[in-house]
């Protein structure tokens, strides 16, 4: 019956094409999408909670003629479908308000519904062909969505890079499935599970999957398209792409690595761990350097994906050494972070979208002081920032805490490589957590606090109630997930059981709703108690002070050490805020070149300071490839301008070579 919901989504997509010109079309389509996603969500939650939640398989006559299209709903798929449909429903409701300003609705509506349907189908697919079909269909629809403002060259370039990288990823996955399917082509997933794969083959498949799914999720060497494409799409779509599509990519890698491939080798965990570690640090450092709000959030997705892959790497490492308890913990941490990230990243993108509609600006250098004009949006954005920087009462901290607990299990790993790498990656994770906090202090501080830096920021106004409703409900969800982590962990148990065969200890029975990952003596954390503690002591202090000390309050111009300067330009901007960190990590991540030309004394020319950041990965990895292709095209292009005689000599040479081959060979 879930397939009916997806079919309805596709129907709305087709319908949207026909009456996209109508005024009420955008309203109708988004309401339909929201309703369908909510229905799917309901069905899934029921399926998750139902005790005998067996896997239901459905075969349709579509797809490969002799195989048909297999769809399967098991624990892993249910969890990811919940994430997809939750994000989808929220984005659709958000779009009700945000969509009104859409200039070309006919370019957004049909692809939006198709995009949701595509994501649902990918998670449901149970054979290689349907999986890849829906995977690439998802990229195609999101490419079209990124292309909405196609007049701006920057968007078309971003969309082009995105679809080329997506096609590279699909081809890598195609090769992986080809290897798994074997010579006589058993493309069904269940056939792949049954078939025994040689370690060398499964090693190659792992690398291919990391290339394929990793490029879609945004692991570092392959992340280049993400910060270009995600901001280019309309905000509710970039929220979906960052919050949900990257999770579908994570689902893809998990389904293949944990489900289809058999016994993992030890170096798998090491490889995934290193990739995750590098992605976290580089992702957040790049994010710190941005001054375009949506691009900052997109780069930050790379960091969170890195954290998820660290969790997966740990799970793989423990699984190879048959430490299933620790593996279950690591996997639950990764899945919990998937859920959290989809929550707060979508919330932050909604906030960025609200800022965009209110001020028409994405560049933080033009914003500032929005907290006074957009109180609710700024509160929701603040909750998002606190959650994403993994600060205690909220959900970001819980998943990071679980990952740290998993890292602390690393002493029992026999392989030296892992034993050394795991704490080192733990250090990287800690570094990126701190940098994330720095990044979101900058994002919130420069955008919402201080004085407005431009006229647009001056006349900002609060967004409509649909956007606010979604943002505040997601903020509440972040708080709930932070306070009651035990519930979420128990909900994740069937997923880890299906993938690894073991689960974290039962959390529901622990008193005071705290969570104990391994044993009570080892470590425990109680979100609710910490939150209640802070709230109580804060209000207690405020009451005592107001009651017994003074309540007097007076407004006056800012002190600013005695010489207040009203010009907003004196405030710290995004660039200057990140300057100390840029200086510390400058050379590491990008070729930092700072030119400062001070005019000679007496010369009234203004001093200029230019800091240029080169993106090392783009220059070392992508430019050589592009130049190589251009060179190849240039050389081969000469064949186009030969004379007839030379073409004839080409034919003649081929004939002679073939005859020679025949003369020599048989």
């Amino acid at each position, binding site marked *: 019956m879930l397939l009916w919901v997806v079919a309805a989504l596709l129907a709305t997509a087709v319908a949207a094409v026909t009456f996209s010109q109508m005024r009420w079309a955008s309203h109708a389509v988004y309401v339909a999408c929201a309703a369908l996603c909510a229905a799917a969500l309901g069905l899934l939650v029921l399926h998750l909670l139902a005790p005998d939640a067996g896997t239901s398989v459905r075969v349709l006559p579509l797809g490969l003629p002799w195989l048909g299209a297999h769809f399967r709903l098991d624990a892993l798929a249910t969890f990811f479908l919940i994430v997809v449909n939750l994000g989808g429903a929220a984005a659709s409701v958000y779009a009700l308000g945000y969509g009104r300003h859409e200039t070309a609705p006919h370019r957004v509506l049909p692809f939006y519904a198709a995009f949701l349907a595509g994501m649902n189908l990918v998670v449901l697919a149970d054979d290689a062909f349907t999986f890849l079909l829906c995977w690439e269909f998802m990229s195609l629809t999101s490419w079209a969505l990124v292309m909405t403002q196609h007049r701006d060259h920057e968007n078309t370039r971003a969309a082009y890079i995105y679809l080329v990288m997506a096609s590279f990823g699909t081809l890598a996955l195609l090769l992986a499935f080809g290897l798994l399917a074997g010579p006589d082509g058993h493309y069904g997933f269940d056939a792949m599970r049954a078939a025994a794969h040689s370690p060398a083959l499964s090693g190659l498949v792992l690398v291919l999957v990391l290339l394929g799914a990793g490029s879609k999720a945004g692991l570092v060497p392959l992340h280049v398209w993400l910060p270009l494409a995600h901001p280019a799409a309309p905000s509710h779509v970039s929220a979906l792409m960052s919050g949900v599509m990257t999770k579908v990519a994570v689902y893809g890698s998990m389904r293949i690595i944990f489900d289809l491939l058999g016994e993992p080798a030890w170096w798998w965990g090491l490889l995934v761990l290193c990739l995750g570690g590098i992605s976290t640090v580089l992702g957040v450092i790049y994010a710190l350097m941005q001054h375009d709000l949506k691009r900052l959030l997109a780069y930050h997705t790379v960091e969170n994906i890195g954290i998820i892959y660290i969790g997966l790497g740990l799970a793989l490492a423990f699984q190879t050494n048959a430490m299933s308890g620790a593996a279950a913990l690591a996997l639950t941490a990764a899945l919990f972070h998937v859920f959290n990230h989809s929550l707060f990243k979508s919330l932050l993108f909604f906030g960025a979208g609200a800022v965009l509609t209110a001020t028409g600006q994405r560049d933080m250098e033009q914003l500032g002081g929005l907290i006074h004009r957009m109180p609710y949006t700024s509160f929701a954005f603040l909750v998002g920032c606190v959650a994403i920087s993994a600060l205690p009462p909220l959900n970001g901290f819980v998943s990071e805490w679980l990952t740290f607990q998993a890292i602390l299990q690393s002493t029992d790993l026999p392989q030296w490589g892992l034993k050394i790498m795991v704490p080192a990656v733990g250090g990287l994770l800690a570094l990126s957590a701190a940098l994330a906090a720095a990044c979101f202090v900058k994002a919130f501080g420069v955008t919402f606090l201080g004085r407005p830096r431009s006229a647009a920021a001056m006349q900002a106004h609060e967004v409509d109630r649909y956007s606010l409703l979604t943002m505040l409900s997601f903020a509440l969800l972040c708080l709930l997930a932070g306070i009651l982590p035990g519930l979420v962990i128990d909900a994740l148990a069937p997923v880890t059981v299906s993938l690894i065969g073991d689960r974290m200890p039962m959390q529901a029975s622990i008193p005071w709703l705290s969570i104990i990952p391994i044993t009570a003596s080892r470590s425990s954390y109680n979100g609710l108690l910490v939150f209640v503690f802070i709230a109580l002591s804060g209000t207690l202090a405020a009451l005592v002070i107001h009651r017994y000390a003074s309540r007097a309050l007076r407004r006056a111009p800012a002190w600013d050490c005695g010489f207040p300067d009203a010009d907003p330009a004196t405030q710290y901007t995004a660039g200057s805020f990140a300057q100390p960190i840029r200086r510390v990590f400058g050379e590491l991540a990008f070729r930092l070149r700072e030119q400062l030309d001070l005019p000679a004394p007496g010369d009234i020319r203004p001093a200029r300071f230019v800091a240029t950041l080169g993106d090392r990965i783009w220059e070392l990895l992508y430019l050589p490839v592009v130049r190589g292709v251009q060179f190849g095209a240039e050389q081969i292009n000469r064949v*186009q*301008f030969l*004379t*007839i*005689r030379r073409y*004839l*000599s080409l*034919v*003649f040479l081929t*004939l*002679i070579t073939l*005859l*020679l081959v*025949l*003369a020599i060979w048989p």
Partner: protein
Amino acid sequence: MERLVFDIAHALAGGLVLVSFMMLYQDRLSALINIFAVQAVLLALSVAWQAYMQQAPHLYITAAIALLFKAIVIPVALHRIIKQLGIHREIEPVVGIGSTMFIGIGLVALSMVVMLRVTGNAAPVAREDLAFALSVILLGMLMMVTRRNAVGQVIGFMSLENGLVLAATGAKGMPLVVEISVAFSVLIAFIVIGIFLFRIRERFDTVDLSALDSHRGGQ
């Protein structure tokens, strides 16, 4: 008697290969056309001889067509075109005459090796004919590749077809030989008319193909 019959067929086919070599040697256009006419006559004789050997009367028609068309009509037409269009006399070969000849010998050797190894159990006459036919074809192509002049290329193409007709007649009992030779002669007629009709000479000042190439499609 059997020996003599085989020897004559062998001599005629060998003659054809020899004439192809002579065509490679020519550096003036009108001489080239005359040598081509000689080759056409030789082809007609060998086809007629094959007809006599295989008692296949329809081959006589092919011999007649070869004689009439290729030996007489087309060379005369080409001569008139050269005079009327004022195409300049000498042919600028791309590769020197000496090296072309050298390559030609190599090609003949290759075709001998390839053909004789392959047609192990066919009739001796057929084997001979096919081997010579393949060498005439390869020499024809060599001619087309090494000549800048459009007419030179056309003659190379026509000698290539002579090789084909020789091969067709060599294969005993092959049906449709007549139809194929007719088709080819129609093809050649097309070429000649094409040159005349499109007035390659007038539209591009020289018939040198490099002038033609400047108009090849843009990017």
